[in-house]
């Protein structure tokens, strides 16, 4: 009997931590637990065509069997997840990823009804990677062009006084090298995937005791029909590797990847944005959250409840650690 081959498509290079520390281990695990009757064929760097925002459509339609992507690349499609992409939500990626999984079960099932989510997770602390000057205060951002990933982060960057430029990660390297942007907000995990360490000189982190000024949500999702076509025992292997634990593990893998990525940047200049400076940022963050709640209300959703639940779940899983 021939092994089931799952085509997994994602946008980062094969050498990225996302592939080596998250996707490959997950694939190895399902291969081992199915006695090699099921395995992945990973297509990195969008090798099968399309753009990163189109990944979610690709897995929905069965162009591929599995994708790993950011729901936030497609604005308007997954509004419920934006609660986690508001400023200063995430402190520990493992706990927040578990909270995210639990939250999606309550609020996001309609948005993801066409695919089978395997895991939801977030990345670790967001960092400013800047070409010409470090970010110490909000004033340093004035007039600079900054790449940001999702709708909420773009809005927050604009509130801070910079000009947000929205682009998926793979374009960041080219944009930095050509001066299209003056910097990018990404976690350290992304550093080797775009060689940020060689394209910028400054890395500005926020006070580690504070929550990150942003995070992005990720999803590993499977095509529904493909899942349904699996024999019961292989379904079980997928089920055993889906849900809250793999989600938490993904968050943990990204935290470890951040540490690896930071090592690559050590010859550059690092600084930390102080907690006192962040106070005014948080005020803006709260305003953005209030705006978002309003916006959700306009869409007929109880944004306040979603936001409160997100916060409560994050606190619960952080405490459980």
């Amino acid at each position: 009997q021939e092994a089931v081959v799952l085509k997994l498509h994602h946008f980062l290079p094969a050498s990225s931590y996302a592939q080596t520390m998250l996707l490959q281990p997950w694939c190895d695990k399902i291969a081992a637990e199915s006695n090699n009757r099921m395995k992945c064929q990973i297509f990195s760097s969008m090798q099968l065509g399309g753009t990163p925002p189109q990944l979610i459509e690709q897995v929905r339609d069965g162009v591929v069997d599995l994708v790993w992507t950011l729901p936030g690349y497609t604005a308007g499609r997954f509004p419920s997840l934006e609660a986690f992409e508001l400023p200063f939500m995430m402190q520990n990626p493992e706990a927040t990823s578990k909270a995210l999984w639990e939250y999606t079960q309550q609020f996001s099932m309609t948005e993801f009804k066409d695919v089978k989510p395997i895991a939801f997770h977030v990345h670790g602390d967001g960092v400013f990677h800047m070409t010409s000057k470090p970010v110490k205060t909000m004033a340093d951002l004035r007039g600079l062009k900054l790449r940001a990933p999702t709708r909420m982060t773009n809005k927050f960057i604009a509130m801070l006084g910079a000009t947000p430029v929205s682009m998926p990660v793979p374009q960041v390297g080219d944009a930095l090298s050509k001066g299209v942007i003056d910097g990018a907000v990404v976690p350290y995990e992304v550093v080797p995937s775009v060689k940020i360490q060689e394209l910028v000189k400054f890395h500005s982190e926020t006070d580690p005791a504070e929550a990150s000024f942003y995070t992005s949500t990720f999803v590993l999702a499977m095509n529904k029909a493909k899942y349904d076509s699996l024999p019961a025992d292989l379904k079980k292997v997928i089920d055993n590797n889906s849900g809250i634990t793999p989600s938490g593990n993904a968050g943990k893998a990204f935290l470890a990847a951040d540490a690896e990525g930071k090592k690559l940047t050590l010859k550059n200049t690092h600084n930390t944005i102080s907690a006192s400076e962040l106070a005014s940022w948080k005020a803006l963050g709260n305003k953005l959250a209030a705006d978002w709640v309003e916006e959700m209300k306009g869409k007929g959703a109880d944004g306040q409840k979603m936001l409160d639940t997100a916060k409560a779940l994050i606190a619960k899983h952080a405490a459980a650690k």
Partner: protein
Amino acid sequence: MTSMQIGLSVFALMLVLMGIRVPIAISMFVPGAIGYLMLSGWHPLLAHLKGAVYGRVSVYDLSVIPLFMLMGAFAVQGGLSKALFDFANALLGRFKGGMAMAGILACAAFGSISGSTVATTATIAQVAYPEMRRIGYTGRLATAVLATGGTMGVLLPPSVTLMVYAILTEQNITKMFLAAYIPALLAAIGYLAAIAIMVRLHPDQAPPAKAAPLSEVLASGARVWPILAIFFVVFGGIYGGLFTATEGAAIGNILTFAITLLRGDMDRSRFVNAVRTAAQTSGMIFMIFIGADMINAALALSQLPMQLSDLVAHMQISPVIVMAGIMIFYILLGCVMDEMSMILLTVPTLFPVIMGMDFFGLMPADKALWFGILILTVCEIGMIFPPVGLNVYIMNGLAKDVPMAETYKGVVPFLATDAIRLSLLIMFPALSLWLVHRLT
């Protein structure tokens, strides 16, 4: 059929369709779609096409193509490009083949920032091709010069292709760029030498050398300052990181239009003609992109590039033969793929193979840089290698009065210098590595 056989059949069908006068874009699209269908099924193919075409035509970086096409068309219609060429010819006409040489260098300069071989050739050719014909170059030499010149940007820093190679193989971008300067210089020397020799052996290919009197240089120079100013703003701004290539193209458009209008050289019919030219050439180029995208997706799905790389890896043969095989493999891929697709699909599998072999006792880091330069050099060659080369098509599409065979004949001398350069780069890794060792 195995996926590899399907991949090969897709390739073969494409060549057959091209051979029987089916438009190139369609010759790529149809086998690509059939291959995709056989490998994945109707449903995935139809789903793929839902987003693929929009994804291909809504790329920010590619927006430079219609923008520069329109800017060039304004310059042609408003007489600016004629003024520029009169001036350049007054300066360079004293050297036989001088304008062709200038064309090569203009392509190189533009290519290193535009990030796309095809965009470079199309943009420069739009302006330069009619003028080169006007002052007496043959279609053969003019199309060959512009198609070849366009490929230089692949290697010349800052090149996005080099960056992607560096990322895939975890090399330092600065070192990668440093490694590329001497090979790019060799390319330029080779091409200029090819022109010099060609116009000597076939004097009818280029207008006779004619030293213009100083008065003519000054007179034509006086007319040309507006376009020089536009060039300065557009390319200075792009190189200086003040704005993106798209923004530069947009600014160039407005400036070119404004200047021709102010000089009374722009009227309704010229404006309409400019838009028509831009429409025709942009449509042609994007149609090829759409077709190439389909066949690339099928080839990626068939894993043909990966499996062939794997095959090379497991053959117990000498490194030299492996290297030769890889070089031929890339030239073949160049038929259907742009340089970026080639790199993305093959480097992850081929790179470990190379790293596992011994070449002149090179250290791993040096080997990686050297191999990158070789690969990109062959990608360049693949883009113009007969009978099928993406860049040759694009150039020929812009020069409707020149048969494809003429362009092929024209690129042969350039390919000869490419062959010499490639051999030198293979035999003397120091050509790629010396600057790296010297400066880091």
